[in-house]
């Protein structure tokens, strides 16, 4: 059997948050009437599922076994649960699922009513990821979130009531104006709700976002100790400086560890046995199939992603015959995929090794030397001996129990370390 993770992208939001650079459209900005557009999107998603399943079946000797499905966005919780059920049903018709398959779903507290959560649960969603970001209303407002802290708490309670026993809470650190205390406040509030999983991301100021316009000048250059003349003049230094940022983050890590949450990746925490399968797939270089606008895939050591052009995506599957009336040959059915799949990159052995290292090192337990040897037929020392030795000496990496992993300082400057593993 060939294990597979499936990622499904839902690119619609009530409105765009000020920091977000994900591929999504605010409802009121989509071309044409929103409801109708979403309807067409789900039709296309179903057609893509059919086509992708057909293509996988044709290209693969081993039968595929889906171990997890992840609905991400955008705001999946904005969608009609009925359509989510349809997609899941279609996936189950097309693919074999493992018995314990993990079905995750991203949810914005401002869009998830009690009823909707129950419907989603009934549709087969088993794991809910709630985008809380902060339990401080001022911070939420600044981020441009559509919900308040109390709505987030209610959403969590509703989810529990609806029967979700595997819930993640997303939080953000290093927000403009955020203090160590306000961050710890949010962390404690999250802990008090006792989610199974928690993600704590340090804010990244992404180009093309309103935050970029506002704060780009304040972002410290990780590589150079330069004074930014603009920053000195504004007097509006909102972002925590890098030392404060690291301190507040480390304090939060400590708080979470004390509450029993293990930091298993740079930004992810879980109770025992509750690590997110979908995420692990990415870092361990398992295979994943991305469906929907802009979704990325790794199949047969080839990376590709779907078009980010909504119109193009919808057009590719327009007029696709619903599965029940299928009379098309396999070839005709998979043909639209060639119109949406882009940026195809066949990974060389060297690229695979690089990825193995820089993705694997994101995990707290790091990379397993025996897995490297098994995958590439060479020992990790043979390929990276010198780099390993230097960085262990510099206190950035450690080596124990057949694993290589980042130290705390190595984690703080992990890009610096990871860049050394490029061949």
């Amino acid at each position, binding site marked *: 059997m060939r294990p597979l993770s499936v990622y499904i992208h839902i690119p619609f939001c009530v409105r765009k948050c000020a920091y977000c650079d994900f591929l999504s459209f605010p409802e009121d900005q989509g071309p044409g009437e929103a409801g109708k557009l979403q309807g067409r999107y789900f039709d296309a998603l179903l057609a893509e599922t059919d086509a992708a399943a057909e293509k996988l079946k044709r290209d693969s000797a081993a039968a595929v076994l889906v171990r997890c499905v992840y609905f991400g966005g955008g705001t999946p919780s904005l969608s009609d649960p009925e359509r989510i059920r349809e997609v899941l049903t279609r996936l189950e018709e097309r693919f074999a699922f493992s018995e314990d398959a993990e079905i995750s779903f991203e949810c914005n507290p401002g869009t998830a009513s009690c009823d909707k959560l129950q419907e989603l649960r009934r549709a087969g969603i088993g794991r809910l990821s709630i985008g809380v970001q902060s339990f401080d209303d001022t911070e939420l407002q600044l981020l441009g979130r559509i919900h308040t802290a109390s709505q987030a708490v209610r959403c969590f309670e509703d989810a529990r009531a609806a029967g979700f026993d595997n819930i993640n809470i997303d939080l953000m650190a290093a927000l403009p104006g955020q203090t160590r205390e306000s961050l710890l406040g949010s962390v404690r509030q999250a802990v008090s709700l006792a989610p199974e999983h928690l993600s704590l991301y340090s804010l990244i100021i992404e180009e093309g976002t309103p935050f970029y316009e506002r704060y780009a000048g304040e972002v410290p250059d*990780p590589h150079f100790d330069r004074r930014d003349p603009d920053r000195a003049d504004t007097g509006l230094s909102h972002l925590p400086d890098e030392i404060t940022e690291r301190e507040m983050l480390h304090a939060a890590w400590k708080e979470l560890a004390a509450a029993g949450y293990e930091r298993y990746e*740079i930004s992810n925490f879980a109770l025992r046995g509750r690590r997110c399968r979908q995420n692990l797939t990415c870092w361990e270089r398992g295979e994943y199939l991305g469906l929907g606008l802009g979704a990325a895939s790794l199949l047969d050591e080839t990376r590709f992603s779907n078009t980010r052009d909504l119109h193009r995506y919808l057009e590719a599957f327009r007029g696709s015959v619903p599965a029940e009336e299928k009379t098309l040959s396999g070839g005709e059915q998979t043909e639209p995929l060639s119109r949406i799949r882009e940026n195809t990159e066949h990974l060389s052995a060297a690229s695979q090794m690089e990825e193995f290292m820089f993705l694997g090192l994101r995990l707290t337990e790091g990379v397993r030397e025996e897995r490297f040897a098994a995958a590439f037929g060479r020992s990790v020392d043979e390929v990276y001996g010198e780099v390993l030795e230097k960085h262990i000496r510099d206190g950035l990496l450690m080596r124990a129990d057949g694993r290589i992993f980042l130290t705390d300082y190595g984690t703080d400057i992990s890009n610096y370390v990871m860049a050394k593993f490029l061949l």
Partner: protein
Amino acid sequence: MAESKKIRNFCIVAHIDHGKSTLADRLIEKTGVLTSREMQAQVLDNMDIERERGITIKSQAVRMVYTAADGQEYILNMIDTPGHVDFGYEVSRSLAACDGAILVIDATQGVEAQTLANVYLALDHDLEVVPVINKIDLPSAEPQKVKDEIEDVIGIEAQDAPCISAKVGTGIEEVLEAVISRLPAPGGEKSEPLKALIFDSVYDSYKGVIVFCRLFDGSIRRGMPVKFLATGASAEVVEVGYFGPGRFIPCEELTAGEVGYFTASIKNIADTRVGDTVTGVEKPCAEALPGYKKVMPMVYCGIYPADNARYGELRDALEKLQLNDASLFYEPETSQALGFGFRCGFLGLLHLEVIEERLQREYDLDLVTTAPSVVYRVYKTDGEMIELTNPSNLPDPSSIDYMEEPIVSGEIMVTTDYIGAIMQLCQERRGKYLSTDYIEQTRAVLKYELPLNEIIYDFFDALKSRSRGYASFDYEIKGYERSNLVKLDILINKEQVDALSFIVHADGAYERGKKMCERLKEEIPRHLFEIPIQATVGGRVIARETVKAMRKDVLAKCYGGDITRKKKLLEKQKEGKKKMRQIGSVEIPQNAFLNVLKLGDED
């Protein structure tokens, strides 16, 4: 062989950007040597760098045939001269090969400092000068005003100067007619012993050195033994010919008044120095042509291969460049910081930049360049005098009696609005004010004596920025003067970096040291530890900065769709690391060595 009264030998002189090369192109096009389709713009500027920067580095010559209004066919030899003060001596030799000059003046700019300098140079060589007003197609052109200015400032008749647009191609015929009617035919006697002036030479791997020369007397033909008066070398002529555009056209013989080339299986370009006189071995001329001097490099710097393994390639490249450029000097040197490289001598900073660029482009070498330095004279207490080309070699201060530095006399032409700003600049650069001469109500020539080491870095840029581009500058070396100089050393993480040491006037040491430290702080990437940067004079720290340790370089999110992007980010990071130099435990980007020296005007 041509009748000498049907020959005109001339050059074009102009201030930079006044359109010299464009006019040269038009003349070539008009005389039908090449059609415009065959011509790449600016035929005479052969090197990529020349074309891109719009400057001429090597002298070039071209022979054109023109049927004038009088129905007669004339041979026009146009010699293009380098257009930069760095190459002043080459300019003077090119001018000496001519009988007349076309003076191109921009109708929108008028007379500039370089215009003056070049015209005086031409007049010094007894050249007849024909002014030409260019760029009359521009709306801001004021030809009449410029004509008056030429008469007032330069003192040559200009009312009937051709008004042309070389760019558009109008008035070109008029220029050619003026060349014929107003410039003299060459003199000289064919029957006299050979007397020819070398105005340039290039190296060809098959033919050896190709000597560019102007014959004043006698003739030169294949098989004739010739000798070079200054260098004493002799050789037998293999080929003579003249210059077609972009190629050499062999002919039987060159005679008095003609411009052309010869080859003589000469392997060493140093035997054929620009300015030297060529004569026959059997019937030598009585005396050499006047004006020969050996050019001495004025600016030195260390050039190192970024990758030490490519030292041999750098040596070969320098050797090849020197074949075509006798003024380039180099000798091996070693730096603790940079490894094995060469101390190279140049005519000036432009010459340095050109050589650096050619090494990078034509030989694909990554280079690290140290601070350019002038030649200081160090007088030791034991009476010995050292010419110091590398600051690192400065003897122990206790053994130094005193030091001297080269001084230039400079002329800055500037509109009166900016006189204050320019005077302040010269003051800051330790200039000694001599005089202000008003050319007209709104323009003046400021005369200063300036230390050469104050103008080799960024003086031109500062001049342009403080005058909004309106000031122009020309200088010549005046001599050496005693000066209170000290060696400034830079320590990075407590280790002295020899490549960053330089000589500076004691009064400016603190400012320079401070700026160097500030600049280095910006150029040195953060490491895992704090890096102190210190400037010292005689072991005493005069300035200090600190590069803070790396604190945070982490990507919070990395999921399925981010992986390709993440990899690109890491690749970029790795790419940056490649171009680093290890100094002790600190990695320094190679370009930092030059960047820290380019102290911006606003700093």
